[in-house]
Structure formats: C-alpha cells, structure tokens
C-alpha cells in the first residue's frame, strides 16, 4: 500500500479518475507514512487523520458522482502559517499556544473547494523567520537527504522546512508554503523539490499569519514542475478580502508544461557570481545555461547592479513590517498570556516568553529602524533602494529578456545546529542572497533541482520571471527538469 505515496499528483489524479485507487486508500497510505516517519523527520506539528479520512471519503463520493474537482482526493500538507478553521494554527510559535482560528485562509479554502484532502499542519521557522527551520518552537525538521556515507542530520532549509521535507520524504503529495525572502525556494533547493513563489498579488494573503506584508506570498512545494503548476492553479485566485490580490484571471499553468523554449532569451546576471561561492554552484549554473541553450534558448549576459544591496535592504524592510505585524500578540486576544503586575508588565512578560530569539531580534531591529530619528536613515533609504532593485529587473525585461537564470542557494543543505551559523545571524541571512531580490521586486521565482553536489546533496537552480508570467517559469523549469532528472533521497527513516 505504501507505494501509493510514490505517485505524483498528476499520476494520482489519473488513477483516482480511472477508479484504480480510492481517495481513502491514498490518504491512508500517507497517514501510515506520516505515522512511521514523523517522529524522526518532525515535518508535521499536527496531524489531522480524522479530518483527512472524512475529506477523502467525500472525495470518493464526488468521484463516483462524476463531479470531481481538479485536486479531488489529493492529500496535502499545510504550512502552519495558514489559518485552518478549528485546527492548530500557530506559525510554530509559543505565543500562539492553543490558537484555533474560526476562519479558513483563502488559499486553503481554494484547495478544499477543488477537492484536496488535508493531512495536517507542517513545521516551519517561527513566524517564517529563518532559513533552517531551527527557530520553530516545535524543534528542527530533519532533511530527508543525508550526505553520502554520513549519518549527520541536515536542515531542510527554511522557513518552509516542514513543507519541503514532507514533500521530499513522500509524507504528502504536495504542500503549501510561503516565501518572504526565499522561504519556498531555498528549502526546495535543499530537498530536491520544486518550489514556486508567484508574483506578489497572485495568491491571496487573507488568513495567512502575516510576517512582512509587502513581501509575503504563498506558493506550492511539489515533487516536480508539473505538480507545482497543478497546485498553483488551485491556490491562486482573485480575492476581494485581500486588497493586494490582483484582478487577473488565473491561467492554466499546466498547459505551459512541455511547451518549447526555442527562441526565448534567458538573462544571466553577472552580479550573482558572488565571492566565495563554491565551484560546484558555478558549475551547476553553467550546466543550466547549457541545458537551456540546447533547448533552443538564447543566452544573454545582463547586469542587475543593485543586487548586493537587496539583502541589507531586506533586513530593514522585513523586520520593520514584522515589528508592526507582530504587535498584535499582546496576551489579550489569543494565545499565550503571562500575568504581570500591571498591563504593561503582562505585555512584556507575555512577549518575552512567547517569542523565540530570532523573532525578538527582528522585532527589535524593526522597532529601532522605525523609531523617531532613524526612520529616514534606515527605512526610507531601504525603500528607495528597493525601487532601484526593481528598476534593475525592469530594464533587463525591457531589453528583451524573458526569464533570468541563477543558482537558488549559495550552498547545499548544512548541518543542524551548525556552530558557525548559530553564532552569527548575518551568516544565516546570507542563505537568501539569490532569492531575496525577487521578493524585493515582487517578481515570480521558481527553484528546480539541477543536480547533486559531491556530497550527494541536491542543488537547485532558480528562474526569475516577469510579473504574472509564471507560465514562462513553468515551461522553462520543465526543460531543466527534463535534462536534470528528478531526485529522491534514499530512505533512512
């Protein structure tokens, strides 16, 4: 029965429609896999077996009745950042202890409307702040990948580490994730999975716990490019409840899979060749260039001169927005309360006990850069730099570039509790050096596996597209996937 978990969404969909398998069988196979593996991988922070079986049963009934939705009976994992009615939703923070929303996020509601089945809530960095899933209140997630001949536990990346690990270990058919600075693409690259952050405004942010509202965007993590296209089609929508959701019809992303990229112009930005980048990353990048060239694309060198300023600008803008968004956790309306001698003492004690170190650090930075006398020097300047970063991309696209190819991360997955990274927050932040520019400019970006490094660990390539041109990304990523192949970890759990 467990081999049902090896089916992609596209394959499972065909078998379900042909009645070769039932949704209940498929869901049960995943629930068994989760039960056997989760203690070791720690990808799920809450499993919802009863709800899953009930939803699967309803899916089987709809399939029999001939009114199946596009995701009918497909079991998914949901990042803990998405509000799910009556079910654990804590952004993996202590401060949201016991929080069960009375509403459903638009993205998850879209998935259920299309027939998907919820398996449970996935681990993540606390409030999506982190690049290793180590800041979660529920402990780190283990990457299903290990280096050749090593038993060392590696991080799955973050913040969507639970989503990426669950997809790679076949503990769900696909997962929802969110990306503020690289939180979909970096974990996808670390686990040999495919992750797409769509254009800002493509997926509704309604009902998703807010981190940095001008950067946050939901997207899927999937086993291959085709599955990612299927999931994004269902997740994306026009939503009157989110004023930043765009009024554009959602295209049929699946139709882009298999289309030719002949004659397309792919930009290679020289600024992404950073000091100290491992040779393997450069080699992977060149391999990616060769694959696209072989498929008939034209390769052009481009310049994005403000690239190096994206990460420092991000570490002003994101904490500033976070400090404001996280002000709502005050021990009054939901979650944890620690009593104090007066109301201010209660606030301070609650927030001191409820937030982890990384979250506190970012709230402090955000509060500082927004405080009187510093706003112009930090926040206003960072927002101006952001305009310049976006302009760099606009100029490249205006010059005729259709998509941009870069490495997804500056390295493969690193060890859990890496001392070097733990002692210096800025070093951890550098993980997002290739992904964060995309959020700053609001563009779509996809991470697709490109190969394995000398340790046998996956490495990813990133494609960056024009606003709302996710179709080009799916089409081009599929070409890379066809050339590179797919990568699955050997099971040790």
């Amino acid at each position: 029965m467990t081999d049902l978990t090896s089916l992609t969404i596209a394959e499972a969909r065909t078998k379900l429609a042909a009645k070769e398998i039932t949704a209940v069988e498929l869901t049960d196979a995943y629930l068994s896999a989760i039960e056997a593996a989760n203690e070791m991988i720690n990808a799920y922070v809450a499993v919802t077996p009863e709800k899953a079986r009930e939803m699967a049963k309803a899916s089987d009934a709809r399939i029999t009745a001939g009114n199946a939705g596009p995701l009918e009976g497909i079991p998914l994992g949901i990042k803990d950042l998405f509000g799910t009615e009556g079910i654990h939703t804590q952004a993996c923070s202590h401060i949201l202890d016991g929080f069960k929303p009375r509403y459903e996020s638009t993205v998850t509601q879209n998935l259920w409307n299309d027939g998907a089945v919820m398996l449970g809530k996935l681990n993540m960095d606390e409030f999506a702040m982190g690049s290793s899933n180590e800041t979660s209140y529920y402990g780190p997630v283990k990457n299903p990948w290990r280096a050749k001949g090593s038993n060392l536990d590696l991080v799955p990346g973050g913040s969507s580490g639970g989503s990426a690990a669950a997809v790679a270990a076949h503990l769900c058919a696909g997962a929802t994730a969110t990306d503020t600075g690289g939180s979909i693409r970096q974990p996808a690259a670390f686990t040999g999975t495919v992750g797409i952050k769509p254009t800002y405004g493509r997926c509704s942010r309604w009902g998703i716990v807010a981190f940095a509202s001008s950067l946050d965007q939901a997207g899927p993590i999937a086993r291959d490019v085709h599955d990612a296209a299927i999931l994004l089609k269902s997740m994306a929508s026009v939503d009157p409840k989110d004023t930043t959701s765009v009024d554009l019809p959602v295209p049929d992303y699946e139709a882009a899979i298999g289309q030719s990229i002949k004659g397309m112009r792919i930009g290679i930005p020289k600024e992404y060749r950073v000091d100290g980048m491992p040779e393997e990353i450069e080699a992977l990048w060149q391999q990616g260039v060769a694959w696209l060239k072989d498929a008939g694309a034209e390769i052009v060198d481009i310049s994005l001169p403000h690239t190096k300023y994206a990460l420092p600008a991000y570490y002003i803008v994101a904490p500033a927005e976070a400090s404001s968004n996280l002000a709502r956790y005050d021990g009054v309306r939901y979650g944890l309360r620690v009593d104090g001698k007066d109301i201010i003492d209660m606030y301070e004690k609650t927030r001191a006990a409820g937030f982890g170190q990384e979250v506190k650090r970012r709230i402090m930075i955000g509060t500082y850069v927004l405080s009187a006398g510093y706003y112009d020097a930090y926040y206003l300047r960072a927002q101006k730099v952001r305009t310049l970063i976006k302009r760099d991309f606009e100029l490249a696209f205006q010059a005729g570039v259709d998509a941009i190819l870069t490495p997804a991360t500056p390295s493969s997955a690193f060890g859990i509790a890496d001392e070097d990274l733990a002692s210096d927050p800025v070093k951890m932040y550098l993980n997002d050096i290739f992904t964060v520019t995309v959020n700053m400019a609001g563009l779509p970006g996809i991470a697709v596996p490109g190969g394995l490094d000398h340790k046998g660990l996956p490495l990813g390539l990133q494609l960056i597209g024009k606003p709302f041109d996710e179709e080009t990304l799916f089409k081009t990523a599929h070409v890379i996937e066809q050339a590179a192949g797919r990568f699955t970890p050997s099971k040790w759990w």
Partner: protein
Amino acid sequence: MSVDLATVKRVARLARIAVSEEEAQRMMGELNGILGFVEQLSQVNVDGVEPMTSVTPMKMKKREDIVADGDKASDIVANAPNSDRNFFLVPKVVE
C-alpha cells in the same frame, strides 16, 4: 550607527519585550552585527529616487460601503486567554 545598552533596553521597552541584563548584552552584539551589515546601503546614491510604496502597480480596490461581515463576537473572543460575556479581560488599567 551602533546601539549601546541603554538604547537596546529602550527599544525593548518600545517593543514591549522584557529583557534581562544578560539578554540585553547579547542582543546589543547581535543588533550591532545586523546594523553593521545594513550600513552598506549608505553607499547607494538614492538622490531623486522615489521610495517604493507598492511592489506591483495597482489601484487601491474599493467596495460598496455596506456591512458585509460581523455579528461574530463569540468567534472573536473564542481564542482569548481570558474573556467574559464577549469582552476581553485585561489587568486593571484605570484606578
């Protein structure tokens, strides 16, 4: 720019996060590390550049000014650590 211990404590107060002496010391080092990192933005010439206000050009959506939602007081207080008859309970703030 860098922050001293008094500034760290003041910011923690503004952010409503209680910090011990030891935590304030540690945070001072970390915050200065991050502020040192973002310092490189001062190299960028931003003369005449508009600050970004919206990442994608979009018109603010408007809707009819009608009641479309509400009457959910019990849902709203459902997750409160302490509530009574649809009111949030907080420590006494007025003597």
